[in-house]
């Protein structure tokens, strides 16, 4: 089907003046929503990934969503390379049900590893396929033909791909291609090509789901209850209905939402409604306010599993005379997106359309359909960029709430944006965790045994088909149950040190914690590497070795060594003043993805105990680099965000609910305190490209706490860093 300008305008809704139609900013794809495109979604077919457009350009479909991680430009570079086609002739469509292939969630730093690699292969295969088609059509051997800029050139002719296929698509089954141009030619791949959406942002174009406007769109707000298990016992509907501007009050069980024509009216009404309702919060468990959370989570009922058992660590530990033992704790952390979650929903002619910054359009569709009791085919989810989420935040929840309201008010677009306290108070957090480590050194100061116990709630309760993975399930009359612990693997991710250690035991103890929890950037790796790399430092001290040399002497492979050696060069000549410290850390994310060596220079104010991270250095090896500037940007951001987690962040709550509801009660690092960051990339073209977005999160915090030790001699075992510990005595 042709994608006309009219369709396109319908697709994105109301277009304001100055909005570029050529931009790849999340909107430039798909069909008219009421009439799904006749597209194959079979990932084995070329045309699931690649569409030839009538204007001679090529559209690439990714099932992933742009989250600020730069997947759009990376995918474009990979396709451009294999098709030897200028970037301006390629556009990218992001996750949309019925339009893009189902690639599950945009998570786990997998966008490059899965989607971009599938697109690279599809494009490389398409190149061979179109040359073959032209060869047969013109009876010219493929050796005399060339594909360039979406055209085929013969000895004395040229034709666009669209003309060559006479409007048809490349409907062939993809076979694995042996050689990628991206591995050898690298005209587009491996270069710091700028993202195009940044210009759209500085020009104030529509980029985000928050920016979408539709004709006659209504604004919604939700009156969330005071706690997870509150019940609505009374509401004065006659008083509420008198509120000026109210178009509709929607109540479903304990779910309460309001619709108004103007956004500010909706906000005012929502605030006033709070005065006309009464909640009962006596039912259900209170939150463990005022208790030591580390002790509390270790006392909860657990389900224990042994995840690794190599050699005989217990025996070695028992017999060793040189041991180090320590316990570590990390509190609940929030994603705290800068832009509160937002969605637009429209229920029309029996179909529900949802515009969402969710990480998985298909999983959200399936779960929404279950929650709403609709057939899956009647739900259409279109991914549109939102504020950086760093995991599973409120995106799906706000979409579900908007959808509930759209069903109650058909025919109009319903835009719901959460307020700051909705975002902070109801998102699924990264769980609190505790780790106990014990390790033994042999006579030569080498690690002989390692034992790890980790306590954690689950790290993934993403929409999985069960409505209880969506927030409104807490509020509706039907009992959907607790989503449970979810994905266990996130808890013990990176518990096995990426070092040469002959005897290792890892046990995970899974609890169901008091707060709603799901995936936050790097999952359990953050806490596990904070613990491992702290202990590595302690072991180095015990072995009387330089911390970086101690790590190098335990390195598992050459890539680890190269990262650490390069880091050593980067920090050569760094001088420390009084009350300053330099700390190191190293890890390989998931023990299978990006390598990262990290250093941090900190200073401690001994009067206040306040830590300032002055500078951080990182060396990353993510295999083949697709876009070095994108990789650096992700790495730098991870370092700064991690410094914020380490020094500032902790979700606080009272017996009833979360109390960290704004930027004062959930402070994060701000400009005056963010470190200067410097990143170097080791590009390994011979290796597969692996995700990098989560690789720095853990080593950054570990390097900071090790730097604090270097400055003060005090070991930080609980996060966030408590300044009280660091005040001069």
């Amino acid at each position, binding site marked *: 089907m042709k994608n006309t300008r009219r369709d396109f305008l319908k697709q994105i809704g109301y277009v304001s003046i100055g909005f570029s139609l050529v931009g790849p900013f999340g909107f430039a794809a798909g069909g008219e929503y009421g009439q799904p495109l006749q597209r194959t979604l079979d990932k084995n077919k070329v045309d699931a990934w690649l569409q030839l457009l009538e204007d001679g350009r090529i559209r690439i479909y990714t099932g992933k969503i742009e989250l600020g991680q*730069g997947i759009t430009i990376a995918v474009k570079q990979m396709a451009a390379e294999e098709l030897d086609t200028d970037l301006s002739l390629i556009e990218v469509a992001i996750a949309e049900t019925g339009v893009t292939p189902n690639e599950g969630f945009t998570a786990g730093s997998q966008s490059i590893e899965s989607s971009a690699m599938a697109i690279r292969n599809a494009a490389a295969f398409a190149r061979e396929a179109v040359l073959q088609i032209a060869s047969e059509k013109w009876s010219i051997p493929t050796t005399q033909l060339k594909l360039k800029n979406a055209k085929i050139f013969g000895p004395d002719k040229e034709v666009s791909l669209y003309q060559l296929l006479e409007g048809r698509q490349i409907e062939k089954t993809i076979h694995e291609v042996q050689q990628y141009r991206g591995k050898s030619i690298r005209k587009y791949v491996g270069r710091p090509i700028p993202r195009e959406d*940044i210009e759209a*942002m500085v020009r104030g174009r529509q980029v985000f789901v928050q920016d979408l406007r539709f004709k006659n769109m209504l604004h919604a707000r939700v009156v969330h209850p005071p706690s997870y298990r509150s019940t609505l016992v009374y509401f004065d509907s006659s008083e509420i209905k008198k509120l000026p501007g109210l178009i509709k009050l929607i109540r479903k069980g304990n779910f309460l939402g309001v619709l108004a024509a103007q956004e500010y009216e909706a906000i005012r009404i929502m605030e006033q409604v709070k005065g006309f309702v009464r909640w009962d919060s006596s039912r259900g468990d209170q939150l463990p306010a005022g208790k030591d959370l580390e002790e509390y989570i270790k006392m909860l009922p657990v389900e224990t599993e042994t995840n690794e058992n190599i050699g005989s660590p217990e025996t070695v530990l028992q017999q060793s005379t040189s041991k180090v033992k320590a316990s570590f704790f990390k509190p609940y952390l929030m994603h705290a997106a800068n832009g509160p979650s937002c969605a637009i929903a429209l229920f029309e002619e029996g179909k529900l359309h949802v515009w969402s910054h969710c990480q998985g359009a298909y999983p959200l569709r399936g779960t929404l359909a279950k929650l709403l009791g609709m057939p899956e085919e009647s739900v259409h989810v279109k991914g549109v960029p939102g504020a*950086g989420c760093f995991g599973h935040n409120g995106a799906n929840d706000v979409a579900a709430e908007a959808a509930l309201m759209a069903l109650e008010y058909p025919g109009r677009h319903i835009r719901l944006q959460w307020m700051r306290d909705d975002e902070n108070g109801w998102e699924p957090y990264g769980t609190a965790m505790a780790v106990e480590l014990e390790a033994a050194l042999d006579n030569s100061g080498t690690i002989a045994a390692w034992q790890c116990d980790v306590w954690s709630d689950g790290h993934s309760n993403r929409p999985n088909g069960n409505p209880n993975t969506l927030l409104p399930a807490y509020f509706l009359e039907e009992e959907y149950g607790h989503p449970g612990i979810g994905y266990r693997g996130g808890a013990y991710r990176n518990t096995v040190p990426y070092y040469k250690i002959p005897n290792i035991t890892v046990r995970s103890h899974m609890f169901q914690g008091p707060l709603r929890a799901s995936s936050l950037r790097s999952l359990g790796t953050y806490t596990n590497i904070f613990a491992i790399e702290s202990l590595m430092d302690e072991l180095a001290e015990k072995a009387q070795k330089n911390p970086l040399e101690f790590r190098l002497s335990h390195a598992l492979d050459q890539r680890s060594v190269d990262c650490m050696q390069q880091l050593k060069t980067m920090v050569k000549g760094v001088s420390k003043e009084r009350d300053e410290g330099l700390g190191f850390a190293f890890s390989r994310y998931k023990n299978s993805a990006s390598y990262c060596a990290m250093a941090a220079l900190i200073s401690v104010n001994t009067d206040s105990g306040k830590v300032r991270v002055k500078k951080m250095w990182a060396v990353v090896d993510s295999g083949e680099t697709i876009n070095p*500037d994108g990789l650096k940007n992700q790495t730098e*951001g991870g370092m700064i965000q991690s410094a914020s987690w380490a020094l500032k962040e902790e979700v606080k709550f009272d017996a009833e609910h979360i109390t960290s509801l704004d*930027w004062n009660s959930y402070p994060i690092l701000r400009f005056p305190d963010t470190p200067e960051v410097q990143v170097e990339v080791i590009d390994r073209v011979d290796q597969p490209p692996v995700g990098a977005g989560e690789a720095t999160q853990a080593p950054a915090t570990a390097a900071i706490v090790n730097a604090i030790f270097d400055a003060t001699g005090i070991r930080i075992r609980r996060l966030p860093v408590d300044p009280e510990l660091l005040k001069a005595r």
Partner: protein
Amino acid sequence: MANPIKLQINGKEYETTARPDTPLLYVLRNELELNGPKFGCGLQQCGACMVLRDGEAIPSCRLPISALTRSKIRTLEGLIDEDGNLHSVQQAFIDEQAAQCGYCLNGMVMAAVALLEKNQKPSDEDIREKLTINICRCGVHSRVIKAIKKAALNS
């Protein structure tokens, strides 16, 4: 309905019948359909909604329109000249790729423009101080500082 309120936005006069206590942000986004200023917190804590009021960068999320009848308001869109040329700060953000998700970008650009109007050669510390209110979750702070210094050189 209340009397219309006259506002001066990006060099043009605009009349709105919104309630006088309506914060400017909602008029900019929903009536003028400007995408630059963003809702971030509604509490004047994060800077996502910043605009220039008589040259000074301030959050617009709690600023009632009734207080603005004598003010000149400039938004991100108003920094672009008639030929579509970007302000040096906008250009520098592109050059330095100083964004990840970009939701905070509006506030950072507006704060930087206000800074450079008073201080043509800001130090790192000046920039950090001026952008204290601007929350960025993705951690592009280092790039933003570089971008603003570059803009200072180019303006």
